[in-house]
């Protein structure tokens, strides 16, 4: 067999990755390789001359190597056809796609080329050595992904350590009002699972905890967890609220995205799990004053379960598998000045609106504009959401805020279109006389029942405008919104009472640090990198470490849940069989070469069927 290797780079930036010269040298010395050519970045290929070359050289197989070499494959395939060779014998050696991204992964790149040359799929040859696996599992992050994964594994009778950074599990989903497209309330479907987690005998729930350090090898990790003091005994607390009623401090509530306030000792929300109060160190007067002032909650607590002097605790757990489900944060809308978020009181982000329209939110689900109130304590006028406030007569929803934009995040956040439509529905449902406008670029309603939902929203009388609004300014107390209505070929400029910004998703803060601790890479946008985009969307380069949900890339609830269960499968697979995969980094070039050689025998040409 006579093989030729062609190097071409699709992406100039990514070209800086592996050391192409040394890979080329290596390729030249591989058996069967008769020619190696470097075609540079985005080469202009024309099949005809290639065909001639193939004919002259009598080539049986071409290997196209580089970052995303698939961009050039069709040219080679056609060349093979023109030269009368088997067009299926064009093999890809995709560096980036197979994890050879940086300079120190040149060896990996060589292995990828070696596999392609011998016509063996890389993932078939590149299988790390198996390791024995400790039966316990660590799940990091207790949003819906973490909860789902933890429950599935625990239901199989395996021990799960579920750690969560905040004081309660539930994540973002617990903040939502309704969920698209079926509009059943998020609480109704999530709280049972939260309760189940709280009650499950196989789940060890550690809230207010973060991964501090990771030691050990795949299958046997020793993880040190830093546990912030809750300062309230969750088992003793009966959530009687005596403490919070006594607490003199009020600060914006994180759970309500700052549109409502809480005390320094508080419950994130009524259905929180663990269902107990906790003390916010940053705002607690006692702690800030070093025990000098206040401490009234301790005196008020009928069960004496508050210990304001409780300290940080380091917990070490031994686990075989680690599941990353750290989820996402929302894009900081203040970074886009022209939308005036943070300047105009009635420009809200999606999450703020979720809380506003939520039955358990500060206005009991009434959609109202902010009203100016005099705060006696601070002696200042403040904008507040008053349940008796004025409902907006018109609401504008702007899609793709911080997404699909080179100046911000170039990627699509995947969920915004649908939740924006959901908002439109909620507005029209609760305020039938109000007008609602959606400014979108592409209506990405791709899931099961989504397109139908989008149609329904239009029928409900929401004005759906194709064209992203450019600016928001204030005009006599109302918000003046300006944008192009492309489909009706006209400019729009009209006042509204409320603007909702469909902010995109960004990786949760600290995800990069966690990734570094665990040796899990992140892509250019900061999302955790999966092992293989298509084949292994929930595995990672590091053996025994899995990713689930939005921390791997924006996702809606069904896709997140599916991934969480998939991860559970991965963990259970290795637990039940007692053997798990090691890390890719432990693979030696020689191993892969050897394996590729033995597999090459009996590895026929590509499956070509179903025509």
């Amino acid at each position: 067999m006579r093989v030729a290797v062609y190097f071409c780079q699709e992406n100039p930036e990514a070209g800086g990755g592996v050391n192409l010269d040394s890979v080329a040298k290596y390729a030249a010395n591989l058996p069967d390789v008769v020619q190696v050519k470097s075609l540079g970045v985005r080469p202009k290929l024309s099949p005809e001359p290639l065909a001639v070359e193939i004919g002259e050289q009598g080539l049986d197989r071409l290997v196209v190597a580089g970052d995303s070499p698939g961009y050039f494959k069709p040219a080679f395939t056609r060349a093979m056809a023109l030269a009368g060779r088997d067009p299926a014998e064009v093999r890809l050696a995709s560096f980036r796609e197979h994890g050879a991204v940086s300079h120190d992964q040149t060896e990996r790149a060589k292995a990828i080329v070696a596999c392609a040359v011998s016509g063996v799929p890389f993932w078939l040859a590149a299988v790390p050595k198996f390791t024995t696996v400790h039966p316990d599992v660590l799940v990091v992050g207790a949003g819906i992904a973490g909860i789902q994964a933890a429950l599935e594994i625990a239901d199989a009778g395996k021990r799960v350590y579920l750690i969560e950074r905040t004081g309660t599990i539930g994540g973002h989903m617990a903040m939502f009002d309704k969920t698209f497209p079926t509009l059943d309330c998020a609480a109704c479907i999530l709280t049972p699972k939260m309760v189940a987690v709280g009650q499950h005998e196989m789940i060890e729930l550690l809230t207010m905890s973060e991964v501090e350090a990771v030691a050990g090898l795949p299958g046997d990790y020793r993880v040190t967890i830093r546990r912030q003091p809750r300062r309230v005994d969750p088992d003793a607390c009966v959530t009687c609220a005596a403490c919070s009623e006594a607490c003199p401090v009020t600060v914006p509530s994180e759970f309500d995205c700052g549109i409502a306030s809480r005390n320094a000792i508080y419950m994130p929300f009524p259905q929180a799990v663990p269902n107990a109060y906790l003390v916010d160190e940053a705002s607690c007067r006692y702690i800030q004053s070093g025990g000098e002032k206040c401490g009234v909650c301790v005196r008020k607590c009928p069960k004496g379960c508050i210990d304001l002097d409780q300290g940080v605790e380091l917990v070490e757990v031994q686990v075989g598998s680690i599941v990353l489900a750290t989820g996402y944060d929302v894009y900081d809308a203040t970074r886009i000045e022209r939308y005036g978020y943070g300047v105009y009181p009635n420009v809200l982000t999606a999450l703020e609106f979720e809380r506003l329209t939520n039955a358990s939110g500060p206005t009991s689900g009434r959609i109202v504009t902010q009203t100016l109130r005099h705060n006696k304590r601070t002696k200042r006028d403040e904008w507040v959401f008053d349940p008796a406030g004025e409902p907006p007569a018109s609401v504008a929803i702007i899609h793709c805020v911080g997404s699909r934009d080179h100046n911000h995040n170039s990627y699509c956040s995947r969920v915004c279109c649908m939740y924006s439509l959901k908002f439109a529905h909620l507005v029209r449902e609760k305020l039938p006389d109000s007008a609602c406008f959606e400014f979108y670029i592409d209506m990405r309603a791709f899931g099961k029942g989504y397109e139908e939902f989008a149609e329904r929203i239009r029928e409900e009388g929401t004005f759906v405008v194709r064209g992203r609004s450019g600016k928001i300014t204030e005009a006599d107390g109302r918000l003046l919104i300006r944008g192009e209505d492309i489909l009706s070929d006209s400019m729009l400029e009209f006042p509204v009472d409320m603007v909702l910004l469909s902010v995109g998703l960004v990786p949760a803060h600290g995800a990069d640090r966690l990734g570094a601790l665990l040796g899990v890479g992140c892509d250019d946008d900061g999302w955790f990198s999966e092992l293989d985009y298509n084949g292994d969307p929930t595995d990672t380069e590091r053996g025994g470490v899995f990713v689930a949900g939005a921390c791997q890339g924006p996702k809606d609830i069904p896709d997140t849940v599916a991934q969480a269960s998939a991860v559970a499968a991965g963990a259970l697979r290795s637990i039940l069989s007692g053997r798990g995969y090691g890390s890719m980094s432990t693979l030696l070039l020689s191993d892969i070469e050897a394996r590729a050689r033995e597999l090459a025998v009996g590895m026929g040409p590509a499956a070509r069927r179903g025509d």
Partner: protein
Amino acid sequence: MATRVNPKLIDDLEIYGAQDVSKCYHCGNCSAVCPFSQGERIFPRRSMRHLQLGLEERLQADLEPWLCYYCGECSEDCPREAEPGETMMSLRRWLTSRYDFSGISRLFYRSWKAELWAILLVALLTGVGFLLLGFVQGDLEIYDGPGAFLPSHIVHWFDWGMAAVLVILLGINCARMWWFTMGKEGRANGTHVPLGQYLARAFLVPYHFITQARYSRCEHKRPWAVHLVLMLSYVTMLVLIMFFLGSMQAGPGIDWRVHVFGYAAALGLVVTVIFAMRGRVTRTEAHYKHSHESDWIFLILLLTVAVTGILQHILHRAGLDAAANIVYVVHLMGVVPMLVLEVPFGKWAHMAYRPLAMYFSDLQPRAVPSRSRVEPVRPAGASSGRA
């Protein structure tokens, strides 16, 4: 009747500087941030669309490119780096070449070498011509008065000749512009603008020409200021040369009544040109990011003219008449190509097209149905409403 898409047009426009137009995914951001995008005149997005689709007829009839002053905001906010501002600029270049009957402009924009050679050629001819004139009838040692190397009255006549040529060339192109944007379009949708309106609104041309009023409405003010100074200086200079050349050239004493204007204008020209050049080198401001070769040629030419103009004036005052005369010839070698080439066929044509565009865009809504056939040409846009 459906219009045929021409995917090749964007390749052609690339030569005029529109490199990124294909990146646009039509979010409408640019139109929304542009203060001029209003009512019927929606741009830059719509123009970008016409360009992507290669609808030449439409583009040729569009006035929008002239209504954009390239403040650069749309380009800064563009989510896809499609450079709407630069696209509008390129469309202006393209339109200039379309309006031009001779095809020279098209040649210049597609090959800067050709433009350069043409300028050099004309400059050479001018130089030779004036040297002959000088040596035949005058004395190199005399700058002014009897026996002057280049007597002002002759140069003056020459200037008027120039002006006539210029007006004719530019006039024809302006007429074509009118035909493309008003005449043909009007016919297409069976309307015409009554002559009365043309007369009533005619003041708009000088108004916009002098004040650049529209430009001042852009978010960024500085480009407007710079442009205004440059333009006013240029016009002042033109007036001085056209009507007061005698007293301009007179010397060596300084005749403040005229020269003070000369100094102001010269200063204005030099400063703004240098400012523009600096901008195009540093590329900090959006509207200076991309420079077409023609932009550089234009600036360099203008600078030479200004500098030589000042220099000959100084030399004359310094009593170095011979040197002054030589520099004067060089000066004319710059002026002439500028007038016969740049103004009608090059970047400078916009000083005519822009105010005209304002004028026409003001007139278009005033069109009335012609007695003949009346039917709208655009498909009525479906209402955005309860779609």
